[in-house]
């Protein structure tokens, strides 16, 4: 059995919508409750996140954006420029703590306190670019974790797998020209789903050409199509790149019950995704793997898939 770190902080619940919104604190409450009743919580190594350090955030976001975000929260703005991305007066600090959760999970794995980590964090991060939050995301948690691992733990090559149903446009933009971080995203085709990027010919730029890989899926695709994509695209990419650690932008909104998209993954589909990435991390990076929560908005499928995800990470 693997030692699995679990990064969570009760303050994650403080970032709460001022109007009805799918990205709500109830998501995390339900996840923790599910893990407790399933008897899994006691088997995890709890790590308590701290606010991400300024220099770790600045490695991903511009100071101007951070100042704008902080003052918007202080002023009591209800949303960012992107109207779908709400704020309250806690949001800036909670976003720092969310990035800090991804950092804490990564730290536990990098220092060997755990084999793998799951970071139950919010707000999510993968749409946030250097100068803009959007799509419910304020700071790019997985990007901050990747930069942190490189800066503080001497990690060279990082591989990010983003299986959230939406394209991780923020993460892609941060690492577009960076050959040391491979970004692989599988998502519903951009013609049909937000944010409208992640086409198959987006493969990175300059020195980073070839270390971005996008797998847009047709609406209605499910377990079989994802399985094939993992075998034919993800596996060879990891084999070629030889990362030292794999980070996962683990969204669960590609589930067939999720209302925000048209992909039809089942619970078993998510078991396969987790297992395959875990196998790849075992084969190529000493088992080091850190999953951070992104989307997933239907509480039933979100909690059941996360239970499966945790069981697979534990290597039951």
């Amino acid at each position: 059995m693997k030692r699995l770190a679990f990064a969570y902080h009760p303050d994650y619940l403080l970032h709460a919508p001022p109007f009805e919104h799918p990205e709500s604190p109830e998501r995390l409450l339900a996840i923790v409750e599910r893990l407790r009743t399933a008897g899994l919580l006691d088997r995890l190594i709890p790590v308590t996140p701290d606010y991400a350090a300024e220099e770790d955030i600045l490695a991903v976001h511009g100071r101007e954006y951070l100042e704008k975000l902080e003052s918007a929260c202080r002023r009591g703005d209800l949303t960012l420029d992107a109207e779908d991305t709400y704020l309250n007066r806690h949001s800036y600090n909670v976003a720092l703590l969310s990035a800090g959760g991804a950092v804490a999970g990564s730290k536990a794995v990098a220092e060997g306190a755990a084999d793998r980590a799951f970071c139950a964090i919010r707000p999510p991060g993968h749409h946030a670019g250097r100068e803009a939050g959007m799509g419910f995301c304020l700071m790019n948690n997985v990007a901050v974790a990747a930069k942190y691992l490189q800066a503080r733990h001497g990690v060279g090559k990082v591989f990010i797998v983003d299986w959230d149903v939406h394209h991780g446009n923020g993460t892609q933009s941060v690492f577009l020209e960076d050959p040391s971080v491979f970004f692989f995203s599988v998502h519903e085709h951009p013609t049909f789903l937000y944010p409208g990027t992640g086409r198959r010919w987006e493969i990175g730029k300059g020195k980073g050409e070839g270390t971005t890989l996008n797998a847009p899926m047709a609406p209605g695709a499910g377990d079989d199509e994802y399985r094939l994509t993992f075998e034919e695209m993800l596996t060879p990419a990891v084999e070629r790149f030889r990362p030292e650690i794999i980070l996962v932008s683990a969204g669960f909104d590609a589930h067939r019950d999720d209302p925000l998209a048209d992909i039809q993954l089942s619970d078993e589909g998510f078991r396969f995704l987790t297992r395959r990435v875990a196998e790849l991390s075992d084969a190529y990076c000493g088992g080091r793997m850190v999953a951070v929560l992104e989307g997933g908005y239907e509480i039933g499928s979100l909690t059941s898939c996360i239970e499966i995800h945790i069981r697979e990470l534990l290597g039951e």
Partner: protein
Amino acid sequence: MQRNIVTVAPSASLFEARDRMREGNVRQIPVTGGDGRLAGILSDRDIRGAVLPGGLVPGFSAEDAEKFLKDTPVGKVMTRKVITATLSDTLEDAIVLMHDFKVNALPVVDRDGKVVGIISRTNVLEAFIDVLGIGEVSSRIEVIVPDKPGTLAQLAAIISSFHVNITSVLATGHVEAGKRANFFRIATLNVAPIKKAIEEAGFEILDPSRYTL
């Protein structure tokens, strides 16, 4: 339309014209006289076509080809009958002209016949990408509506009640008679409540899994 255009005089050599086309990264170049009026158009294909007969002669070398290009004036090879757009033509006019006359570029002329710009197929594609809102952070919703006045306004009102910007709209026919399809790009990830409200208003949301890419 591109306003910074590369032109060439009828008296210039094909060699010079080819250089200008390479520099400007264009495949067709308006030919203008001293008064700036359009005299013809020259494409890279015209140049290749002019060299080709020589290439079939045995012993025709690269140097011979270069000499031929230097010795042949543009005016001898250019197409004189040019399909042009005027400053008052619309993008729609330009698209129809390019399609109906099978041309790759339209020089744009003013009332005096002077060349003021050029529209290429690439420009048209760029305009389409822009109009369709591709590349803007947005979600797409496809709605099937009855073919009667007022439905688009009704849908726009529903969307605006969610304080969401519409970044592009496309309304087209639908395979079913008496119906039309409206495509919206809207600046939000949170489409589920908007789709629900549209359905509750009696419209049909097209399930994207039902049509192929």
